[in-house]
């Protein structure tokens, strides 16, 4: 195994995820990113909620918290407020982040606390048997939508931008090298960084939607993602079923929450303890 993976992973592999699951690809992209940044694993906190993707913290050799469903961000906010010197990474899934933890998500976006959120979007609740999530595209099938979902899906990155997130990017598991760069850029940004990753669930999503083979799913993701620069030259019809990838928002002027808090303590009581 690559030295970067050995360095940041616990010795408990193989992992629990199904064959062809995108979570492992995101996990290795993350490991390459933190290795290239030279981050100390003893100074990193990994936080996750509940779901397939949230199992990631069980495999990372950091200070890790596997918390309540949808509540990864509140736990991470607490950790970061207590130890602003530590690097916090939050791993979440599409259901965990946009449904159960949807409210926490938008408020973390506006609060702009310095941490990196990686949302692995596989369009489905995989662990519980394939129910549709708020990110299941309109018309796609799930166990709870056997004739196709009639719910319109969120555009998670637009939601994050609307809620005031200061760094928003979208990557995917096919463009794995770019994903590593996006995670690095998200970490380097001072403030709340949201990175949505378009990922594959061949078992719970692919099998019901005509793409059960992991290799075909990879090809599907390749064909349904467009770089931001290329997307600017395309029409709305051409972009209808495509995901735009790249850095979508970066604001450096927004006040960072830990700094605002320290300034507040300084102002009213002469400094934090």
């Amino acid at each position: 195994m690559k030295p970067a993976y050995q360095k940041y992973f616990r010795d408990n592999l193989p992992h629990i995820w199904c064959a062809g699951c995108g979570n492992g690809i995101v996990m290795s992209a993350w490991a390459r990113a933190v290795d290239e940044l030279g981050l100390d694993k003893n100074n990193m906190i990994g936080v996750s909620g509940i779901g397939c993707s949230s199992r990631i913290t069980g495999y990372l050799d950091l200070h890790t918290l596997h918390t309540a469903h949808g509540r990864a961000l509140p736990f991470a906010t607490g950790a970061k407020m207590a130890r602003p010197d530590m690097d916090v990474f939050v791993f979440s899934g599409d259901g965990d982040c946009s449904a159960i933890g949807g409210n926490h998500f938008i408020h973390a976006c506006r609060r702009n606390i310095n941490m990196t959120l990686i949302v692995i979007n596989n369009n489905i609740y995989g662990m519980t048997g394939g129910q549709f999530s708020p990110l299941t595209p309109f018309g796609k099938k799930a166990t709870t939508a056997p004739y196709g979902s009639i719910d319109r899906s969120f555009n998670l990155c637009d939601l994050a931008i609307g809620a005031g997130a200061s760094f928003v990017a979208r990557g995917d598991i096919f463009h794995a090298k770019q994903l590593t760069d996006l995670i690095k850029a998200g970490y380097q940004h001072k403030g709340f960084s949201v990175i949505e990753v378009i990922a594959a669930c061949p078992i719970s999503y692919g099998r019901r939607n005509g793409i059960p083979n992991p290799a075909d799913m990879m090809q599907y993701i390749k064909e349904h993602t467009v770089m931001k620069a290329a997307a600017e030259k395309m029409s709305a019809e051409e972009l209808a079923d495509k995901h735009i990838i790249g850095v979508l928002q970066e604001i450096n002027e927004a006040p960072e929450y830990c700094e605002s808090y320290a300034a507040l303590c300084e102002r009213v009581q002469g400094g934090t303890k």
Partner: protein
Amino acid sequence: MAKKSFDVQVIAKLCKACGICVSLCPKNVFDRAADGKAVVSRPEECIGCVSCELHCPDFCVEVMEKEAE
């Protein structure tokens, strides 16, 4: 300049036979065993694009450049 050569390894214990490396390899380096797992059959064909390594969900493929002989 001499052509670079690479050593490709698959950790069979971790492989879940998803077939992603086999399908993405541009040089057909891999075959699939009877159980579907990837086996390195033609390592001399490898051009070191590391697509297999980047896309393996189970961290079991590694491509290493060989020292020049």
